[in-house]
C-alpha cells in the first residue's frame, strides 16, 4: 500500500469511528456530559499526575466529565458537517447546474451571485447572523449552509460546462432525449465524482468554521459541548492546565484530518481533478 492509500484508509477509519461515536453517544458516555460537580473542577486526565481513574480525560472548569463531553461534541461536529454539506450542496449544485447548463444570461447571473458571495466576509457575516437571530444548532447549520455553497457552485458550473459540449451529450440530444434526462442521466453521473470531493472538503470547512464561531462565543450555545466551545471555555485555564485545550483541539484536528485524507483518497479513486 502506498502512503496515500494508508492515509485514505486511516481517514475512512477516523470518519467512520467518529460517526459511530456520534450516533451511539448516549450508550458510550460514562457520565452525564452536562452534570456539573464543582468539587471536581479541572481534574487532569487519568494518565496524568493527579488524574482520577473515573474521569479518563479529566473534567472541565465546571467539573463536567471531559470524555463524555468530547463524545457528545462529536455529535455536533458530525451534524454540522453533514447538514451543512447537504444544505450548501443543494444550493450550490442547483446554481452551478443552472449556470453551466443554460449558459448565456442565466450563467452571467449565477457568476454574479458567486462573486457577491465571495466578496462577503464569511466569518463576520456568520457571526452577525447568529448574533441577530439567536444562537442555536439549527441557526448555525442554516447560516453555514447558506454561506458555504460557492465551491459547489463553481465546480458544478465548470464541470457541467465541460461535459455539456462533449459529443455524447450532443448524441443524446440527437437521440431525442429530454432536457431532464440529459441533465440527470448524461451530465450528472459524469460530474458527481468532483462533487463528492467538494463535499468532503466542505464538510471539513464547515466543522472548522463552527468551531471558530463557537470559539468566538457565537456558535452553538452553551452548555452544548461543541469542541470549539470547549476550547473557548477552557482557554482561560490553558496556562496552568494546557491539556484542557489539547483534548478538544486534537479531536477537532484528527476529525478534519480524517475527512481530508478520505477526500484525497476519493479524489484519487474517482479520478477527479487535483484542484476540484
Amino acid at each position, binding site marked *: 500500500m502506498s502512503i496515500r492509500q494508508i492515509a485514505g484508509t486511516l481517514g475512512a477509519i477516523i470518519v467512520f469511528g467518529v460517526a459511530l461515536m456520534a450516533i451511539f453517544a448516549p450508550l458510550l458516555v460514562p457520565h452525564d456530559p452536562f452534570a456539573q460537580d464543582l468539587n471536581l473542577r479541572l481534574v487532569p486526565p487519568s494518565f496524568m499526575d493527579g488524574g482520577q481513574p473515573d474521569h479518563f480525560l479529566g473534567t472541565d472548569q465546571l467539573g463536567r466529565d471531559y470524555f463524555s463531553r468530547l463524545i457528545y461534541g462529536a455529535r455536533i461536529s458530525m451534524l454540522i458537517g453533514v447538514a451543512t454539506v447537504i444544505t450548501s450542496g443543494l444550493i450550490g449544485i442547483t446554481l452551478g447546474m443552472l449556470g453551466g447548463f443554460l449558459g448565456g444570461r442565466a450563467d452571467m447571473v449565477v457568476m454574479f451571485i458567486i462573486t457577491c458571495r465571495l466578496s462577503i466576509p464569511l466569518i463576520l457575516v456568520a457571526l452577525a447572523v447568529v448574533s441577530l437571530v439567536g444562537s442555536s444548532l439549527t441557526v448555525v447549520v442554516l447560516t453555514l449552509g447558506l454561506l458555504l455553497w460557492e465551491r459547489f457552485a463553481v465546480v458544478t458550473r465548470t464541470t457541467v460546462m465541460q461535459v455539456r459540449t462533449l459529443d455524447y451529450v450532443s448524441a443524446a440530444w*440527437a437521440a*431525442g*432525449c429530454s432536457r431532464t434526462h440529459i441533465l440527470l442521466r448524461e451530465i450528472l453521473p*459524469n460530474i458527481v465524482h468532483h462533487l463528492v470531493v467538494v463535499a468532503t472538503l466542505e464538510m471539513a470547512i464547515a466543522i472548522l468554521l463552527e468551531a471558530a464561531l463557537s470559539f468566538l462565543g457565537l456558535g452553538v450555545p452553551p452548555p452544548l459541548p461543541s469542541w470549539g466551545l470547549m476550547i473557548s471555555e477552557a482557554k482561560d485555564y490553558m496556562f496552568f492546565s494546557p491539556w484542557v485545550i489539547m483534548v478538544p483541539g486534537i479531536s477537532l484536528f484528527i476529525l478534519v484530518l480524517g475527512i481530508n485524507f478520505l477526500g484525497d483518497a476519493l479524489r484519487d479513486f474517482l479520478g477527479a481533478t487535483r484542484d476540484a
Partner: protein
Amino acid sequence: MSAAIEIRDVAKIFRQGTGLFSAPRQVRAVDGVSLSMPAGGCFGIVGESGCGKSTLARLILGLHPPTSGDILVDGQALGAMGRRERARLIQPVFQDPFSSLNPRRSIRDIVGLPLAAQGIGGREITSRVGAMLERVGLRAEMAHRLPSQLSGGQRQRVAIARALVLGPRIVVCDEPTSALDVSVQAQILNLLNELRRDLGLTLVFISHNLAVVEHICDEVAVMYLGRVVEHADTDALFHAPTHPYTRALLDSVLTPEPGLGIPDVGLGDSYPDPANIPPGCRFHPRCPIAEARCAIETPAPRMIGTRRVECLLA
C-alpha cells in the same frame, strides 16, 4: 430523386465574449447556405477548420437552431418537428470516438439510448441492441462493456450502431474517421459504404480529407468561411475544379504516389478568420488569381452546367 435535406439560405451567427457589458463578437459560422441533398446518396461537405462545415452538420441535426433560413428534412421543417420524430429520421456519427460515448454507461445503454428516448421497453432494447451490434461487426456480448474497454475503431462502430438503431433515413457523419488510424479508417469507411447500400441510407459526410470524400461521396459541396463556394457531383469536381479554392484543396491532397513532390498551392500566409470576414469575395486575400474587383464585388452563385460556383473569375 427527391431531396432528403433541403437547406434554404441558412445562416448561423454565434456571439462570442459573453461579457456583461462588452459588445459581443459575431462569428458568422454559416452564412447563407442553400443546398439540396438527394435521398439515397452520399453528400460530401469539405473545407478547412473554421469553414462552418461542422456547424452546418449540427444545424441539420437540429442541435442548434439556425439564426435565419429554413431546413427541411424529408420534406418537413426541422424546427416544427418533435424531438422523437426528428430522432427517428436523422442521426449523427461524430468525430471523436472517445468523447462521443458516455464513459459511465454500458454499450447496451449507449446504443439503446435512442430507443429508450422513444419509450421502448428494456427487453426489446436489449435484443435490438444485440442485433445492431452484430450488424456493425461487433459481438453482441460487447453490450455489457464500458466504452473504456474498447479500441477507437470499436467505439466508432458503437457510435454507428447507436445512429442506426432507430432505423433513420439519414445519417450525418461529422469527420467520422479523422481521429482513427489509417488501417481502422478503412474498416469504418467500408462499413459505412456497406450499410448505406444495404439500408438505403442517405449519408451526409463531412470531412477535410478529400481523398476519402472522393472515395465515398456522389456529390460534394466545398465550404469556405461559412459559404458553399462550389457544389458539383464528385467526378466533375475532382476532374475539373472551377473555384480556385477547390483547386488549392485538390492540390493539397497528398496521395502515396512517390515522385510527385509537393505542389505549390499558392495561398500565401494569411488565414481565414470567421469573426472577421473580408469584404468582396471572402477568398480574395488568399486567392492566387484574385483581381482588384474581387476585393469589392461579392460573387453571386452561378450555375456552370450542373455545378454551382461562387467566383467572379470562373
